């Protein structure tokens, strides 16, 4: 009996970690390059909506994933335009994009489908191609193919950040853009790349996973604080791939605990109180945080092009 519960919890934990982790890795690139991204929530929900709309109109969930990535890239592109090109206030831009995406997705959802919840579309919730592997095949096929893509993403981002010149350049740009520019790095191009392409694509994946990787529809405000958990995971993981993944697993655990408690409700606690678990976990981990020396030094400091100087 306890074995079954443990297995369900593990599966649930891994499933719920994926969106937080993917988004956190995207945010890690963003923050490493010196751009704070509070718009994670908005980028994710844009992706989730894009995935469902894309699938609804084309019928192919993989094209839906592509639409999701494009939608998130539009949002992250706006963020990068404001914070990299125009030297705007990064926190406010992220907050505004959160509000804008949440509002726009539910507005469009209501104008296209007439309700706050979309009809069910084709989804990619299971990986059928693992079925034939003996022993672990059944276990592996329970996860969405998008989850496997995000596992690949972990290794790729670890490789980029610690083994390549590109990773060194990203760190340099985030720590001291002026020195980086003197050394011949195109600060703005690299930052645009990190925010728009890397962060946007990963946010799109995370969003697509939320809507068509876990479920098969889009719902208003379906991210429910996952983007913010990703932001916290990056800070607590000290901008290091390994620790960021570990923090995402921790938040995934609390999310899974919450979901399982709600389904089984063995303890007879009110569901609203159970739903607060991930938020409480986020706030408590922030309480335990301290200022670390790994902090990208130019984080949140706008680096304005000469031609825009007043």
């Amino acid at each position: 009996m306890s074995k079954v519960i443990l297995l369900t919890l593990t599966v649930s934990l891994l499933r719920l970690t994926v969106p937080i982790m993917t988004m956190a890795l995207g945010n890690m690139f963003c923050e490493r390059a010196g751009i704070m991204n509070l718009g994670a929530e908005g980028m994710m929900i844009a992706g989730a909506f894009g995935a469902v709309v894309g699938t609804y109109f084309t019928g192919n969930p993989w094209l839906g994933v592509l639409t999701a990535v494009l939608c998130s890239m539009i949002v992250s592109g706006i963020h990068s335009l404001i914070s990299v090109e125009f030297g705007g206030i990064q926190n406010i831009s992220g907050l505004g994009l959160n509000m804008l995406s949440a509002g726009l997705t539910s507005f469009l959802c209501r104008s296209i489908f007439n309700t706050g919840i979309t009809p069910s579309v084709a989804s990619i919730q299971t990986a059928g191609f693992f079925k034939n592997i003996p022993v672990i095949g059944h276990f592996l096929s329970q996860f969405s193919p998008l989850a496997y893509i995000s596992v690949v993403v972990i290794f790729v981002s670890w490789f980029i950040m610690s083994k390549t010149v590109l990773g060194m350049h990203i760190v340099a740009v985030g720590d001291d853009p002026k020195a980086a520019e003197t050394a011949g790095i195109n600060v703005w191009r690299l930052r645009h790349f990190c925010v728009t392409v890397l962060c946007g694509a990963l946010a799109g994946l995370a969003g697509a996973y939320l809507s068509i990787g876990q479920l098969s529809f889009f719902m208003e405000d379906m991210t429910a604080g996952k983007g913010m958990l990703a932001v916290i995971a990056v800070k607590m993981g000290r901008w290091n791939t390994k620790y960021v993944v570990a923090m995402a697993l921790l938040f995934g655990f609390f999310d899974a605990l919450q979901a399982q408690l709600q389904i089984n409700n063995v303890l007879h606690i009110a569901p609203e109180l159970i739903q607060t678990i991930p938020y409480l976990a986020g706030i408590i981990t922030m309480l335990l945080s301290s200022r670390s020396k790994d902090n990208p030094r130019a984080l949140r400091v706008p680096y304005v092009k000469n031609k825009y100087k007043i």
Partner: protein
Amino acid sequence: MMAKLSRDKMLSVLPSLLIILIAVVLISIILLATGANPILFFMNLFKGSFGTKRGLINTISKAVPICLSAFAVALANKVGVFNIGVEGQLVFGALGSAIAGIYLQELPAIIHVPLALFGGILFGMLYAYLPTWMYIKQQANLMVVFIMMNNLAKLFSTFVIIALIQDPASMVTASQPIQKSAYLPMIMTSPGKLNISVFILIAVAILIYVFFYKTVYGYEMTACGVNGEAADYSGINTRKYIKWALILGGALAGLAGAIEVQGTYFKLYDGFSPGYGFDGIPIALLSNNNPLFMMVGSLLFAALRVGSNTTQIEQGISGEIVTVIQGILVTLIACEYFIRYIAKRSMTRKKGRRMTI
């Protein structure tokens, strides 16, 4: 001298006007893309909010909580921090006022009304205390904590309503009605309801004005916001002022929540606030902390909220458009630097042309 003054004034107002103009254009584009008529939309908004007596009174009474949240945001802005936790504090304040309104019984109205208002203020302040403490002691990212606290407040108040104070007779999730003695007195009841919260708002505005412009504390608080480091060196305790700005912001938000409970609904509905706390953000930031502009801005936002009902009925445009407008405004405010640059450049270019002529 006169010309220079007006030019500086222009420069301080022009970015805000530009932002509003761009926002209107963007919303029109979105409406056109979804097949709605933007001109009709703005006309319906105006008709619904200012066109009828009832609508006008509705707009004024809706503007009160929005304006209080704008004050809360502006207070924090004054010391150079960004307060987005108003929504959560407002919900929590409403909870406090509802509890005081339900459980304190057999009190005369003259005592019960202020007591319940104070309950809201206290809950708002308490709810602002934790993020403030985390920001000052742990240097946690204030915005992240505030966003988490906003979500938490909503869930927690739903929990309290369902588990502790639910009205079993009600069709929707709502608390028991508060005692009659805690009702805010009405100025008029027809054609629309208007309670004395307008006077409370004006009193708060005067208090804030006196505090900032006539007392040493207000002066030192302003100094914190203008240049925190310099203020610190000159012996002003910046941390103390940041703490108090955030906690007083919580008090204002709590007051706004209490007014909604005691003056509008007379019970605590689950999800009664459609985002008054978030309305305050663009208003405070666009009006450069000017109380008069903030009142005008709150009226406009209240008009948006009231009028969006009309557009929903007449044109089928969902009320979510208000959130979209909020988002567009806040996002544009983030480009403030760039917009100031454009404004400055356009002004200097005009001046240059005049000189060549």
